[in-house]
């Protein structure tokens, strides 16, 4: 554990202490002390940020809050137009905000111009300076800082090596592939040792193979350099692959921010549950802490809805599937197999619930249930059209 990590941990502990134990009684002074401790950790904090674009009907950022610990990689994930880029640009200082404040290491930088924030950005659009070579591009930020030529050349070469492009140092933009350009842009951003590295869908314009390769490389470099990073993407797979924490955005704010695992297993809202991974919407009765779905008792996550008939969000792997003829359990619902997808070690089986009762509940549409199980547990002789019984396992789920 580095010193910075320790400080961050202390800051976080003290923060949660104040938040939980004292709640509303916390004084301005205590808040100041708290911010001071975050400062020494060098964290980033966006508080109650509102952004309204001129002429826009709704807020692009609506009471947006985000805390980032030093050295952490936070991914902002969400559909197109939910405000991811705006959040990043507000943090960078490229967009002015109408309300709220932005703190870097406890210092209020809300009014600080872009070029004084020491944050570097890599965007989806290729942004290398076309009149400079790769090396000159990487040197640019250091040149701006008045560094001597020899010194900045050394650092620039070091960063090019980090992204594996030393042999391209003398090339111009037009002579490089999209992936190479984004690597150079990354090296250029890292060269200034930014307080935060801001990545706005840096891989969107690249083809699939390069995208995966570069994404893993970004994560490796981020861990190696310990650079605090905010990564924006609409691709959940990308988010799950690189993030320490993922903030799922919707309508200009973060709906839930948590480690990938937590986000998947303990979604706070339906939006989060459906955005990350597959989920089934099954009918059930809920008392707020437990639900009964297809006769099976299912523990509920915090924030679940209460009611005689609610929708319970059940992951495909939290369901069991038994052929109807061998079924001995009295829980579960009869269904017909529609398709079987072999995914290597796993199998995904799409089924349609046979009972018309649930079709009515589902707004007249057939109620489809997707089950995922290890290939080794696939019942022998299962085929399209087979009659099966599906039932949930007792895995915590969210009722909405």
């Amino acid at each position, binding site marked *: 554990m580095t010193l910075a990590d320790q400080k961050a941990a202390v800051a976080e502990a003290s923060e949660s202490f104040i938040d939980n134990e004292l709640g509303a009684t916390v004084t301005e002074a205590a808040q100041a002390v708290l911010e001071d401790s975050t400062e020494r950790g060098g964290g980033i904090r966006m508080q109650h940020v509102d952004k309204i674009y001129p002429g826009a009907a709704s807020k692009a950022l609506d009471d947006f809050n985000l805390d980032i610990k030093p050295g952490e990689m936070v991914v902002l994930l969400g559909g197109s137009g939910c405000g991811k880029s705006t959040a990043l640009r507000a943090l960078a200082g490229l967009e002015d905000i109408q309300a709220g404040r932005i703190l870097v290491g406890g210092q209020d930088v809300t009014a600080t111009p872009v070029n*004084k924030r020491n944050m570097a*950005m890599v965007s989806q659009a290729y942004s290398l300076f076309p009149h400079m070579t790769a090396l000159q591009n990487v040197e640019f930020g250091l040149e*701006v800082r008045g560094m001597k030529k020899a010194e900045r050349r050394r650092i620039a070469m070091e960063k090019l090596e980090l992204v594996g492009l030393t042999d391209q140092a003398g090339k111009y933009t037009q002579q490089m592939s999209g992936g190479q350009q984004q690597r150079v842009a990354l090296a250029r951003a890292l060269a200034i040792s930014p307080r935060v590295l801001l990545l706005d869908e840096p891989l969107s314009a690249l083809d699939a193979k390069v995208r995966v390769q570069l994404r893993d490389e970004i994560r490796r470099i981020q861990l190696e350099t310990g650079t605090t990073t905010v990564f924006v993407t609409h691709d959940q797979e990308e988010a799950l692959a690189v993030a320490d924490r993922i903030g799922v955005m919707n309508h200009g704010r973060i709906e839930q921010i948590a480690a990938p695992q937590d986000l998947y297993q303990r979604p706070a809202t339906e939006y989060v549950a459906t955005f990350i991974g597959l989920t089934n919407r099954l009918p059930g009765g809920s008392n707020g802490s437990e639900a009964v779905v297809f006769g099976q008792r299912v523990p509920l996550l915090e924030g679940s809805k209460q009611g005689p008939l609610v929708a319970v969000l059940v992951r495909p792997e939290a369901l069991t599937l038994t052929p109807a003829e061998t079924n001995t359990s009295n829980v579960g619902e009869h269904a017909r197999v529609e398709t079987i997808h072999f995914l290597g070690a796993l199998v995904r089986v799409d089924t349609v619930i046979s009972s018309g009762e649930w079709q009515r509940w589902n707004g007249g549409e057939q109620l489809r249930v997707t089950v995922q199980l290890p290939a080794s547990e696939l019942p022998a002789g299962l085929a399209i059209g087979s009659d099966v019984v599906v039932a949930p396992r007792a895995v915590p789920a969210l009722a909405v």
Partner: protein
Amino acid sequence: MAVNPETAHRTVGAANPPQLRAIRLRRQRIFKAIVLTLTLLFLFIPLASMLLFTVRHPLSGQWSLAPWQAIFTGNGESLGADLTVLWEGLGSSLLLCVVTVVIMLVLMVPTMVIVHIRSRRLERAIEWVATLPLTIPAIVLVVGLGPIYRWLSADVFSTDPVWLCFAYVVLVMPFAFRSIAVGLNSIDVKTLVEASRSLGASWPRVFFRVIIPNLWQSILSASFISIAVVLGEYTVASLLGRMNLQVALYQLGQSNSQVSTAMSLLALMFGVILLVALDLISTAMRTSKEGK
């Protein structure tokens, strides 16, 4: 089923035997050559006539290089022509070129860059305004400029022809605007500005170190076109009673039309050389970046 006539045509064309296609290609080539020749003739016959006129006296029919000698030696006495007015006009036109280009660049480049980044709507408005001088005849322009220049020369500056630069900036605006707009649209200015700003660059540095180097070609072409316009300008200078190259040429033409025509040819050549140089420079710049 409806058949798209265009695709149908293409299919037939593709099915043609290669000989037929070769014949059609040859016919096209001949047609192109004829059009090119006619155009070049149309352009060059007047020039050739001018050249002929300078070396062959229109009345006596005598061949002589005297007008050219007069220009290059700077002595027109043998022809009975006073060349001082020519030098005066040339001097003020060259000075006007420089001043006009400087004012035009200082005025237009930053404005266009800022507007390009900030507001598409304002950019269109500026485009409209910048194109106006093209649609207003110079003579109408002078009606408006007359009183202003009377006031300028009497109360603010002098009657020196260099103050024509303000009117000339207006005249070159449509051409300069076009050139610079082409450059701005060929690069992603907003992204480049944001990248350099977030890397810590101040606005002046962004402007001089990032934008200008990428607009270099457009700036060059805007300047050259402006120079060509200023060198060829007659109406405004003449109607406002200021001396410039074209006015001098006209006056000289009254006493010695041969020298005047020779000088016009030279001015024209200068313009052509400028434009060719522009083309060469931009090609060289492009290849140096794309080649090995």
